[in-house]
């Protein structure tokens, strides 16, 4: 990606230190950065990690820069987890790490040695769908389908989070049991964008599953 137009760092806004120096170097593209003599990285550029993916340990050797998302999609060929923005803005890459949902694009694979990762492929298959997957089909909780695996991952966790008493921005009484309200579900699902606008149907699917296993 090119730097923004005419972007020059105002030095007085920078903190002193190595981070600032590194930024200046890459963003201003001074003369030394343009030569073929690129600065060489220090230390190993790859790491070997074991991810326990959908219950199966998978040892991979990856470039240290590989995100968890790309480790899943490009190294393990599990393409059900989607790349919508690669910047933690859209939620399409939501998957579960050690039982908690995260944006896989915002995490490096090398940070997850030994972690339990659950992807959409581990939840259910076309002829053996998980109740949430089946509810999404039943309620038409998607259109193009690209945000859908992330929505389903979040949806399953939202029910658990509410039941575990984890409060959200819209939770009123922090000492009372949190009710499974539309507002709670909508708030907690708001990190997962659906540009096709299936939100109302996604809410129906989540509510259906929550009621089925109440």
């Amino acid at each position, binding site marked *: 990606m090119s730097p923004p137009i005419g972007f020059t760092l105002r030095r007085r806004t920078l903190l002193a230190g190595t981070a600032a120096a590194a930024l200046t170097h890459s963003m201003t593209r001074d003369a030394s950065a343009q030569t073929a003599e690129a600065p060489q990285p220090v230390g190993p550029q790859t790491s070997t990690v074991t991810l326990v993916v959908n219950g199966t340990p998978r040892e991979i050797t990856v470039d240290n820069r590989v995100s968890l998302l790309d480790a899943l999609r490009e190294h393990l060929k599990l393409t059900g987890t989607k790349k919508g923005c690669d910047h933690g803005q859209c939620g399409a890459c939501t998957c579960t790490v050690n039982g908690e949902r995260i944006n896989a694009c915002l995490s490096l694979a090398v940070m997850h040695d030994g972690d339990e990762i659950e992807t959409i492929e581990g939840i259910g298959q076309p002829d053996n769908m998980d109740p949430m997957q089946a509810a999404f089909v039943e309620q038409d909780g998607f259109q193009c389908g690209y945000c859908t695996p992330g929505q389903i991952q979040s949806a399953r966790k939202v029910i658990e989070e509410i039941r575990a008493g984890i409060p959200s921005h819209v939770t009123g009484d922090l000492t009372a049991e949190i009710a499974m309200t539309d*507002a709670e579900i909508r708030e907690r699902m708001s990190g997962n964008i659906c*540009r096709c606008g299936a939100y109302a149907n996604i809410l129906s699917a989540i509510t259906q599953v929550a009621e089925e296993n109440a």
Partner: protein
Amino acid sequence: MKFNSPVETNLFDDAKIIGKPTQRVDGPLKVTGTAPYAYERNDAAPDALYGYPLGAAIGHGRITAMDAEAARNAPGVRAVVTTLDIDPLEKGMNNVARLFGGNEVQHYHQAIAVVVAETFEQARAAAARIDVTYEEGEAADLDLDAAFRRVEGSGEPDTLFGDVDAAFRDAAVVTDQMYHTPGESHTMMEPHASTVDWSDGGDMTVWTSNQMINWNHQSIATTFGIEPERIRVESPYVGGGFGAKLWLRADAVLAALGSRAAGVPVKLALPRPMVMNNTTHRSATVQRIRLAANPDGTLKGIWHEAAAYCLPGGRGENATAQTPIFYAGETRRVKNHVLDMPLPETADMRAPGEASGLMALEIAMDEMAEALEMDPVRFRIINDTQVNPSDPDIPFSDRHFVECLERGAEAFGWAERNTSAGGRRDGDWLIGHGVAGAYRGALVLPSGARAILDGGKLIIETDMTDIGTGSYTIIAQTAAETMGMSLDDVEMRMAHSAYPVSSGSGGQFGAPSSTSGVYAACMALREKIAGNLGLQDPTFADGNVVSGETRMSLSDINEEVSAEDAIEWGDFQDGYAMGTFGAHFVEVGVHAYTGETRVRRMLAVCDAGRILNPVTARSQVIGGMVMGVGAALSEDMALDRGRGFFANHDMASYEVAVHADIPDQQVIFLDTLDGVATPLKAKGVGELGLCGAAPAVANAMYNATGIRVRDYPLTMDKFIDQLPSI
């Protein structure tokens, strides 16, 4: 099949599958993550390497030098192609800016290089090491408001009917206001992406994410100067389009160039921050609307003048699209100005024209109703028309706009609405209600398909795409219905250039056109089966073909029978105005202290002919309403006028509606029948849900606060100073 006259009764009037709520046939693949999108074709191109693009870092000008040496020497890099390495490529269909080649920069983030490397990380890092020297073009005036003022009143009107000047001079009530809509970005969830195998520079295979297989196929042939027969294009799953993927874009072009240079298949997705400025968007508009009314509420004059920007040779956004036809009126003057500006390319986005035009016109209608002290629902009903008001000899093929308004008012509880602007409160929230009319043209395009009966299975082949609209499902329904078979008997094969050319997906023409094409193919198949069996006018029902005493199961026909046909639209349709109609009703709460606006409930009533599948059609409409909430309250491409690019080019700063923004939504389909439109008496509905949704929010916000904002999006900074004092 030629569609040469309005259809009377046919098999769809006694339908068992069409029109019935039907779950998506591709649903299980999508919810399990097993539907392969363009960047995920490990089944077809498992060894594809990684392409990464570089975008221009100036608004416009030219490149004087590029040094790619460091990138070429970077770890893992297999090829680098810069825009200086090749002559400008020919432009494909409706491409305004060229996609690659040459030293000219026409807009920010125009593609200027592609790096192919063994890993994504290597390609990305190497692309950042390409050094580019630019010569910036002359600063351009990017002030659309000022540009509108310069051209206002000039040029021949696009529509002129009656003595407009006299009407406005003599009218009892006149309104006259300026309205602004911002640039909007499609922001589909899957960025533009392609995997291309052009390893030997010979035959090319393109696995891409595109709404229009045939247009894309032809454009690739034009762009690279190779025979269409040597190109194969597939796009079985598209992660949203909304118009952004109608045309060939840089993802496919760069992947192809990278593939040829590296001698391997290459996959490339546009990085999200590059999508907004590299690809197309909906132009901002400036609109002046003057309305003249008689004391009884009938419109005496409609005067709509608008402007949008585009690169030279482009089309901009025609915000006046609906104005010649939507409402009755004794006189009318309509003019749209398309103004050249060196900005990223503008082109179609969902309901191009009407979406932004109605954002202004439906506020204007609300303002006139208020000036007349008339119920805005009643005001719209009074100004209904059953003929094209700018060409009164042309009747509408089928129009139930009044029924949309009446049914909606009833279902929404319009009678209990707040009737004094700013006069209703619920705690800290000001409560308001708004209505808006919806109109979108009902275009149809030629569309073909092949139907194959093979051992009791019905295979449908067509290059039609499913961009989330439900094409797989409604086409399977159409085929099963026509052949008297069950949905489970149908196998869908779509979105491949080897299949018959369809309408593709866009402009809400996909559903009516492609189902008609499949109907034509299935009728041809029926004829062939009848001929093979020597049967006269047989019927097809319950998996059997029946004629007189003969009854045979289709699964007992051993040899494969295949038929191909296409729907062609007769000139008789030119004698009608074909459109879809609707009414949106919205309740909002506006926080009395902060100006935060929350939509509380929404209702849409739609008149779009036969609804082929109420499940997928409803999803289309609620999705359009969601996009309308974004258009009303948050979506805004922020133009840096000094540098000529859009600054908020990612999904954090270009704000589309999220879960928490969307309340209870209701949709009512009138389920009308339009025999002029298609053999299935169906029209598109995918864009209607967006048309009018945003102005209904705007009108509700005015009703809540008494503050009229005519500049979208209706963010609190535009009116917080006018809120009642605390």
